[in-house]
């Protein structure tokens, strides 16, 4: 009975993975097809030409650079904000905590287009009320995309850092203060080192969330382009397999990163297993 279930489960998992990966494989495969339209059927022969065209596409490179810049700015803003929010939230209790928590996680659930529109309207109105309509910072642009993205990505950072804070021993800070550390040292030498893993993980998440973002960016970007918007506009306005070449490279990058992660994990697991075995052997030797 339970063996049947395991086989059925594995079968379903296999089908599901196929369902997830086949579309990506089709898209990546079309990058090599010598056809004006992006498709794998009919197959018209192998070509590398689309990669060359992609390489020569200045718009793509500009969009790529913009995406990276926005993502870095988002990390630089969202990680400090989210960390501060987690520390603040952790220090209060009672009903204020629940309210503040609710306000902080709400942007995660807010639809991207609402964030985008509200950000544009607010800064525009602010500019008008200060009599500086034309000042570029109040108009649409990638700086507003950054702020809009920070408004919800900070919440992810906050959640990750808050989870990490649960395993922090406040007694360490007490001890440092008693031994004469100043406030800056307590933060820099005691609390932050404990939070670094969570901050690093949230930086990575913030970076990729920002790179992926479409809705907020579309409403706030004005004439600038990011990579996601570039792909979107290419699909809308007559597409060539150039985009498939880009997709192939991005999927390849993902696969390489996943592979590195997996080999690292396996190596660590192996080392751990070896250590455990050694400890067991030592224990047995002691008993004899």
């Amino acid at each position, binding site marked *: 009975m339970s063996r049947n279930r395991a086989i059925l489960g594995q079968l379903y998992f296999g089908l599901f993975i196929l369902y997830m990966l086949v579309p990506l494989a089709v898209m990546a495969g079309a990058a090599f097809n010598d056809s004006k339209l992006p498709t794998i059927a009919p197959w018209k022969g192998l070509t590398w030409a689309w990669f060359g065209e992609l390489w020569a596409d200045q718009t793509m490179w500009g969009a790529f650079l913009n995406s990276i810049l926005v993502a870095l700015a988002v990390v630089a803003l969202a990680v400090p904000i989210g960390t501060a929010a987690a520390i603040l939230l952790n220090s*209060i209790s009672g009903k204020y905590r629940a309210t503040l928590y609710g306000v902080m996680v709400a942007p995660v659930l807010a639809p991207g287009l609402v964030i985008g529109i509200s950000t544009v309207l607010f800064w525009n109105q602010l500019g008008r009320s200060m009599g500086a309509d034309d000042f570029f910072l109040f108009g649409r642009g990638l700086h507003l995309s950054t702020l809009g993205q920070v408004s919800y990505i900070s919440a992810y950072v906050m959640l990750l850092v808050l989870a990490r804070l649960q395993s922090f021993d406040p007694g360490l800070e007490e001890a440092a203060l008693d031994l004469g550390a100043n406030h800056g040292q307590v933060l820099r030498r005691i609390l932050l080192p404990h939070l670094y893993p969570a901050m690093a993980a949230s930086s990575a998440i913030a970076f990729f969330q920002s790179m992926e973002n479409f809705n907020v960016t579309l409403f706030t970007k004005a004439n600038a382009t990011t990579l996601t918007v570039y792909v979107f506009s290419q699909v809308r306005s007559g597409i060539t397999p150039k985009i498939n070449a880009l997709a192939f490279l991005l999927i390849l990058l993902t696969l390489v990163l996943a592979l590195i992660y997996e080999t690292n994990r396996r190596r660590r697991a192996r080392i751990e297993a070896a250590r455990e075995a050694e400890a067991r052997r030592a224990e047995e030797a002691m008993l004899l």
Partner: protein
Amino acid sequence: MEDLIRRYGTGLTAVFCLLVAFWILVLVILPNFAMFEQSFRPYLPVVEIGGPKDVYGFANYGKIFANPVETTWFGIPVTIPIHINTFLLTVFYSALVTLMTLIFAYPLAYFLAKIASPRSIPTLLLLLFIPMWVSEALRAFAWYIILTFNGPLNALLKALGVIDQGIRWQNGVFTSYDAIVIVLTYCYVLFMLFPIYTAITSLDTNQIEAAEDLGSPWWRTHWRVVIPHAKPGIASGCVMVFMLSAGSLLVPTVVGSTKANWFPQTIYTWFNDALDWNTGAAYSMIFLLVCIFFVILTMRLFKVKLSDIAK
């Protein structure tokens, strides 16, 4: 708060508070307030802003009731304002996507949490993460390729002899929203899977075995033991998938037919093509209210708290 000051001093505490205040006030509350306020003001040329015509009213919200069209819902002819029609169809098909992702994801989450061998789990999860790391724009584009008239799906079906003429998938077979539903399901199914998986992992396997030892058939074990335990995960997944689907602008634009309008597209048209930001604000207020309503409904229905949903 005193605790913070004692540990980090007034200066650092003030920095923490300022950062949080900037986030909550300047990036979240004030923009939403601005959207709320401007949604009640008419769209005017710049010189007339603040002038006698600039008064509050519901005119922007009223525009959703304009332009009645004749259409059919599942074979029943109705006359309905065009934007309301789009809105209702968006909500309906988003709910359908949510249901489909739930049906796909639940067995898989259960398999990963309780049946698969624990040693293989990290590898299996990594396999599932790979498509999630590929951006949504590309995943939608992948389906655009598959579903085109001269694309691989039609070629495959023809080769297998299932059909002898290509099907225009993007125009839809059952309804004009077919392609959108297929692709949204594909894009967001993992957002349903992971919360349910996390919820089921925390269920003690002994409970399932106890139910089986006491003679419960498999479906009752799920209905009475596993699903009640997985409720927060299911609620979280449902909210995420519904919000993402209803708010998606990319997927409907990339794979949707011209007959299939999605509400975010309507908002985008007001905002970007008509440049009427005030009506855009009013429409997105309506959209936001529906989303809030859906979250509250899910919380009531599954009897969970907000902190269970947003994790």
